């Protein structure tokens, strides 16, 4: 008879055992490691380890021309890559002082809100999966598939979109994209209601999430929480409202806030934000229609006119005109004129404030680019949040924080 599970002296003394949760545990999204000190099923303390998919984004960004950083940002929070793309573009535009036309802003808002919906859907359905309700997850993915189709119609790619360029978009939205958006807006509310009624008022789900993984507003602020996780704790801080970008000030929407910051609050806040995003998309479509009705030439506006210096010339000109060809070469080489400067600019990502701290020395590549990654910040509060809760709670808490590994580890 072999000796069974070995415990070290210290844990025998304390009557606890250590449990290694992750990095390949199904609940840890494949990359987080937690060394839990357990008393039965109760967690006494947790030591998280990160960095299992550290990819050196910031180092790579220092060696790439500005336009080649867009694909990098895709892979930060890959559940809502377009927001990251546009956050990066807005950062550079702010540094360059480009003013984007309203139509571009609204188109961006549509894309960003669609990706916010996609992001929140993943998070909330993964809470469902971690509590054992798999079916809602599959329903949700049907609608994510619709959103993917919209992205694909706009830019040709589903997940890592590389959507948009400095000053606007690569090309105008095809009619197909608008049709798909309208179809989505029609079909989605019913599916969303189904999703909500499967979980929201289900007693098993409520009891599993209420009072679990809570964090007070003070602690959340002290930990620099942002986004839905901060709002669930009761602080109505939203970058879209506090420091509007991309004409968010034109839109009328609410900021849902919770009270206790527990898993259930986060779930509800995200669900509510999905509804708000839907209303924003509808408003944006109306505003675009109004713009186009007032001035039919608006239909062709998809990038800022003064961004000509930073936007690739039209292909026809490149094929035919010499100046355009030379300019095209310069652009692709990355020789655009970016003035030396320093900027911090933030957008409300699917998961909180995504910040870009960019230092330019006037060269072809950024001198330094630092990403403020909300997940990185949430995860360090994780041990404090789960202390004293059960193993099952820890799992649900992790998914409710919506930790995206790519964003966390950079």
């Amino acid at each position, binding site marked *: 008879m072999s000796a069974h599970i070995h415990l070290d002296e210290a844990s025998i003394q304390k009557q606890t055992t250590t449990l290694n949760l992750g990095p390949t545990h199904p609940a840890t999204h494949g990359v987080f490691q937690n060394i839990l000190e357990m008393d039965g099923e109760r967690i006494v303390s947790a030591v998280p380890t990160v960095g299992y998919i550290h990819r050196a984004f910031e180092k790579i960004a220092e060696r790439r021309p500005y336009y080649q950083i867009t694909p*990098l940002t895709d892979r930060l929070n890959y559940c809502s890559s377009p927001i990251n793309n546009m956050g990066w573009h807005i950062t550079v535009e702010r540094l360059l002082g480009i003013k984007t036309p309203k139509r571009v802003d609204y188109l961006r808002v549509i894309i960003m809100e669609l990706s916010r919906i996609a992001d929140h859907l993943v998070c909330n359905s993964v809470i469902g999966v971690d509590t054992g309700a798999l079916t809602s997850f599959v329903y949700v993915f049907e609608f994510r*598939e619709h959103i993917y189709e919209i992205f*694909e119609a706009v830019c040709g790619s589903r997940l890592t979109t590389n959507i948009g360029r400095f000053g606007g978009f690569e090309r105008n939205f095809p009619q*197909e994209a608008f049709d798909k958006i309208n179809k989505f807006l029609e079909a989605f509310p019913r599916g969303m209601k189904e999703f909500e009624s499967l979980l929201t008022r289900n007693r098993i789900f409520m009891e599993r999430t209420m009072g679990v993984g809570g964090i007070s507003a003070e602690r959340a602020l002290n930990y620099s929480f942002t986004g839905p996780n901060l709002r669930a704790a009761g602080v109505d801080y939203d970058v879209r409202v506090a420091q509007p970008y991309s004409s968010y000030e034109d839109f009328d929407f609410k900021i849902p*806030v919770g009270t206790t910051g527990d898993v259930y609050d986060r779930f509800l806040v995200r669900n509510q934000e999905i509804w708000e995003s839907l209303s924003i998309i509808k408003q944006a479509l109306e505003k675009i229609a109004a713009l186009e009705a007032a001035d039919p030439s608006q239909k062709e506006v998809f990038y800022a006119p003064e961004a000509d210096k930073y936007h690739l010339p039209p292909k026809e000109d490149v094929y035919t005109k010499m100046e355009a060809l030379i300019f095209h070469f310069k652009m*692709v080489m990355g020789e655009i004129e970016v003035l030396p400067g320093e900027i911090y600019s933030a957008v409300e990502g699917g998961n909180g404030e995504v910040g870009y701290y960019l230092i330019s020395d006037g060269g072809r590549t950024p001198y330094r680019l630092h990403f403020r990654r909300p997940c990185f910040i949430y995860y360090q509060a994780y041990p404090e949040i789960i202390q004293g809760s059960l193993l099952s709670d820890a799992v649900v808490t992790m998914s409710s924080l919506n930790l995206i590994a790519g964003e966390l580890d950079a």
Partner: protein
Amino acid sequence: MQELTNKRVAVDRKPMTFMERLYIPTIIKGLFITVGHIFKKPATISYPEQQRPFSPVFRGLHILNRDEQGREKCTACGLCALSCPAEAITMEAAERTKGEEHLYKEEKYAAKYEINMLRCIFCGLCEEACPKDAIYLSETVAQANYTRKSFIYNKEDLLIPNPNETH
């Protein structure tokens, strides 16, 4: 915490009603939804028998363009390789010699043109960078394969069929 904006609205977190405490009514409600889905048409597209239509701008496997006379358009300027964030494109330029006008459109051409599809991230920057209308990303999904070598697509794999030869 004081209010920062006038846009805040609290989420609906009302306590459970008696019916909800009984478990069973909500479970039955849930069952109605999920069982109802049994009678819906499945959303599944039976790939590979059925193909899902890709958008016309889809970024898939690359193609190298020819002009109407079947000449290769690529002039080996290297912009695509330069703009590739994954550094997946390799090319070697060569001068067109006399008698090759029917093969190559420009005076320079790519003697070797290779894309490492394993490295490629299908971002479409090469297509944007091309000043000669030569490289495009097609509506084809790159195939899975057994060896790493088989992902080096060379010029022959990328060139579109010659319009003069096929007919």
